[in-house]
């Protein structure tokens, strides 16, 4: 990883010096041990802040969309001939490039407005899982060395194997290497274990209906409507979210259990053909709601019914935007 980090910094520096990008979105060292946090680099000398390791969690495509939208809004009152174009450089792994592809397919911005620095990824550490693995102790200091995480904690020294504390979405990731990139830093990482990606969903599908409902209710009871999942999700970019719309008001803003269920249900359902399983929503959720169990089902349906995986190629258009007369099943249609 050191090698990739050095190359990444050089690349970022070169892009800023050659003015190929106005800002680079990447990760820097977090304020807490064993964390990384998104950062925005505009000056070449700042490029040395960039890191790339197994603690880089968030999907940066979200910030690409935010920055481009903010820039476009700022240019609205400028004469068309004086408008400036801004190019956003982004450090992107597999899932980030998938989100970028979704943005491009949904015509959110042009391909020339984003410069993709591809990096290979071998998964990120699930912060909550790591904490659980060491019995809830506070991490004071830590380092990653040859697949082992060594930590100094409030309850003495602890170690954890990297492969055990990777996020669920990374363990079964199918696209851990960038799908599209303008420049690739480092060589492709080895594949993860994609054959097991739907095991959890299949297990849940086999349960009786009432048990599934009980699980859904139990998970939704945890949700406190902080909207962190929506804020972190690269596919959630509507200027006004249905949650905040008041005319018509699609969902109540109170704490009624049905409002929470409907909010989650609608947000989840908006992910058909758009969820790239980057795990950002799961990692930011402060209450630990098991969102992935439901999102993965949506992904599975998209794959099985329409043979489409969200953002897996530039040519493959979003599944809900087309229709295949010969292959789509009609068994859901009510026909007495």
């Amino acid at each position: 990883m050191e090698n990739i980090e050095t190359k990444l910094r050089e690349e970022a520096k070169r892009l800023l010096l050659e003015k190929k990008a106005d800002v680079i979105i990447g990760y820097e060292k977090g304020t807490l041990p064993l964390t990384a946090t998104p950062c925005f680099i505009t000056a070449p000398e700042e490029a040395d802040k960039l890191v790339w390791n197994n603690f880089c969690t968030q999907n940066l495509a979200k910030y690409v969309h935010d920055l481009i939208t903010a820039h476009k809004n700022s240019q609205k009152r400028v004469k068309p001939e004086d408008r400036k174009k801004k190019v956003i450089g982004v450090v992107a792994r597999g899932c980030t490039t998938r989100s970028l592809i979704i943005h491009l397919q949904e015509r959110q911005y042009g391909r020339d407005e984003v410069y993709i620095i591809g990096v290979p990824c071998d998964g990120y550490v699930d912060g909550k899982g790591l904490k659980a693995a060491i019995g809830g102790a506070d991490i004071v200091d830590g380092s990653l060395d040859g697949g082992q995480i060594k930590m100094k904690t409030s309850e003495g020294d602890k170690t954890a194997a990297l492969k055990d504390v990777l996020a669920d979405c990374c363990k079964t990731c199918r696209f851990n290497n960038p799908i599209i990139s303008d420049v690739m830093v480092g060589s492709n990482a080895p594949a993860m274990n994609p054959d097991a990606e739907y095991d959890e969903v299949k297990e849940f599908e086999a349960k009786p209906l009432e048990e599934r409902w009980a699980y859904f209710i139990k998970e939704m009871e945890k949700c406190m409507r902080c909207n962190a999942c929506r804020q972190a999700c690269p596919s959630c970019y509507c200027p006004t979210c249905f949650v905040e719309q008041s005319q018509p008001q699609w969902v109540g803003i109170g704490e009624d259990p049905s409002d929470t269920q409907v909010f989650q249900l609608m947000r989840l359902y908006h992910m058909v053909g758009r969820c790239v399983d980057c795990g950002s929503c799961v990692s930011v959720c402060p209450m630990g709601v098991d969102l992935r169990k439901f999102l993965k089902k949506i992904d599975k349906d998209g794959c099985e019914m329409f043979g489409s995986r969200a953002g897996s190629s530039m040519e493959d258009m979003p599944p809900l935007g087309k229709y295949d007369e010969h292959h789509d099943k009609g068994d859901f249609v009510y026909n007495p």
Partner: protein
Amino acid sequence: MARRKFATLKSFLNYIGVEGDRTIFTWVSASEGDRWAQVIKGVTEKVKAMGPAGKLIKNLN
């Protein structure tokens, strides 16, 4: 595409525990009065057999 949306919605609602039979989708033309009556009759019978829906209900008290 309505078709694909309903296929996934039905499947997803069933997955979280709302009976799949409650999500009903079909096409009826404005000129097919007889078919429309048949469809509604069928749906009503189906729903009556299942009983009242108790899920995703908000009590406004």
